[in-house]
């Protein structure tokens, strides 16, 4: 806001209009500034439970009636997407796709879009991200009551079913196909798609500033209502929920983290987290504790954070650096924080028990 204001002042000085118009312009500018700094319209917030997590959406920059209506639309959309994309909702597209494995199954446009983007990232990452990981996710049950360490035989059998190259989508026909025995799981991408859909709906409703928080996946519209970028804390992978090790500034963008601390269980002193490596069938052990991706699309950031975590620091950074407008923050088990060059200005490490490693 203030930057736009100064641009306007410069324009006034350069074109030298009459004194009255200059004063009027300045007063209007100050009024706008006062509106945004002191008496901005009250932000409207709502929370709900979808995709196994708590979702909070805050909007401002519009009247509160318009804000409430936009929130209604966003939360009905979340409900619809959960019914279509969740692997654990009976009768969802993803559930029916698994039940009908072996033949083409008609699915919603949402499922087609997410599956086709998921296969794109499976291809791009050589299967580090694989939406056919369903049998392994179900076997481990991490995050459910039935979480357990499977036997090697069980893992080998489940792993044999995980292969995106034996699955496909036909967008023209409106169908998707898995091979016999395969099951899809969109847990690594569906929340990102839901965030993008929330952003699209709010944008179309004319909402100027919004903060969408899907259980720690962040999407923003505009900047802070009072001016400047949103300030997003980076969760401390070794700390309590809400402890952060640095601050990331975002305007009109999204940040998604995959962290070993998010969902896990412990057995005989070993921690098993939910980021399963399709190539081993076990939780990924890549030396990383979290990967945060900053990108224009939350769908892409979601898939990429999972893939980069599984690939590890070297290959993960190479992957991120090969993509336009995409940045990342990697946190390693030995408390190093690796930041891509394009985030050097917008990310500040605030916890000196970590070591910053620039690319």
């Amino acid at each position, binding site marked *: 806001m203030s930057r736009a204001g100064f641009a306007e002042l410069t324009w006034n000085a350069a074109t030298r209009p009459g*004194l009255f118009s200059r004063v009027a312009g300045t007063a209007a500018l100050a009024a706008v500034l006062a509106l945004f700094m002191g008496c901005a319209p009250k932000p409207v917030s709502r929370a709900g439970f979808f995709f196994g997590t708590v979702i909070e959406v805050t909007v401002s920059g519009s009247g509160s009636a318009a804000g409430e209506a936009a929130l209604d639309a966003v939360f009905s959309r979340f409900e619809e997407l959960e019914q279509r994309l969740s692997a654990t909702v009976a009768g969802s597209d993803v559930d029916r796709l698994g039940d009908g494995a072996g033949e083409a199954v008609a699915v919603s446009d949402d499922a087609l879009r997410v599956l086709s983007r998921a296969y794109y990232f499976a291809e791009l990452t050589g299967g580090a991200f694989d939406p056919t990981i369903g049998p392994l996710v179900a076997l481990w049950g991490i995050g459910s009551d039935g979480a357990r360490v499977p036997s090697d035989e069980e893992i080998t059998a489940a792993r044999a079913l995980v292969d995106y190259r034996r699955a496909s989508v036909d967008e023209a026909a409106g169908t998707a196909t898995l091979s016999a025995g395969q099951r899809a799981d969109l847990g690594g991408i569906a929340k990102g798609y839901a965030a993008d859909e929330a952003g699209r709906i709010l944008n179309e409703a004319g909402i100027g500033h919004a903060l969408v928080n899907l259980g720690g996946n962040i999407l923003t519209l505009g900047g802070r209502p009072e001016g400047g970028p949103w300030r997003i804390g980076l969760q401390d992978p070794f700390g309590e929920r809400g402890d952060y090790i640095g601050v990331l500034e975002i305007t009109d963008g999204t940040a998604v983290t995959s962290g070993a601390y998010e969902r896990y269980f412990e057995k005989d002193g070993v921690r098993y987290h939910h980021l399963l490596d399709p190539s081993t069938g076990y939780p990924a052990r890549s030396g990383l504790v979290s990967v945060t991706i900053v990108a224009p699309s939350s769908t892409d950031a979601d898939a990429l954070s999972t893939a980069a975590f599984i690939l590890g620091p070297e290959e993960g950074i190479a992957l991120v650096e090969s993509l336009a407008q995409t940045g990342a923050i990697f946190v390693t088990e030995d408390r190093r924080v690796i930041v891509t060059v394009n985030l050097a200005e917008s990310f500040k490490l605030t916890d000196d028990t970590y070591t910053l490693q620039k690319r």
Partner: protein
Amino acid sequence: MILTRFKKGDLFVAVVTATLLLAAGAAALIARAGAGDPVAIVIVDGAAVDIINLRDARAEERVYASALGTCAVAFEPGRVRIAAADCPDQVCVHTGWISRPGQSAVCVPGRVAVVVRGDRAEVDAIVG
């Protein structure tokens, strides 16, 4: 370039601008003063049902029932926690005391959440 063309009218504009900017800044500060205490928000079935300033909180326990479960929330000056819940995983109870803006204790099966927020928080949200 701009300096050489600086005239009396421009000085007037600059003074007016500076005054208005200072006034706007002061208004913003006044609007935010006293609004920086951590606030606990209890969310049941997606709606905020209680908003409690944690600095002024008394030691007490409140019970919240959602469509899917019941949670006992314990307040103390400066902090809050989910003390008991009838959910199977007890993740919310194991979260323990929370006190800083950005922290939350969430019972996903029971659809009850306690989040701590503050207007003058250093950050708007936590990614992770």
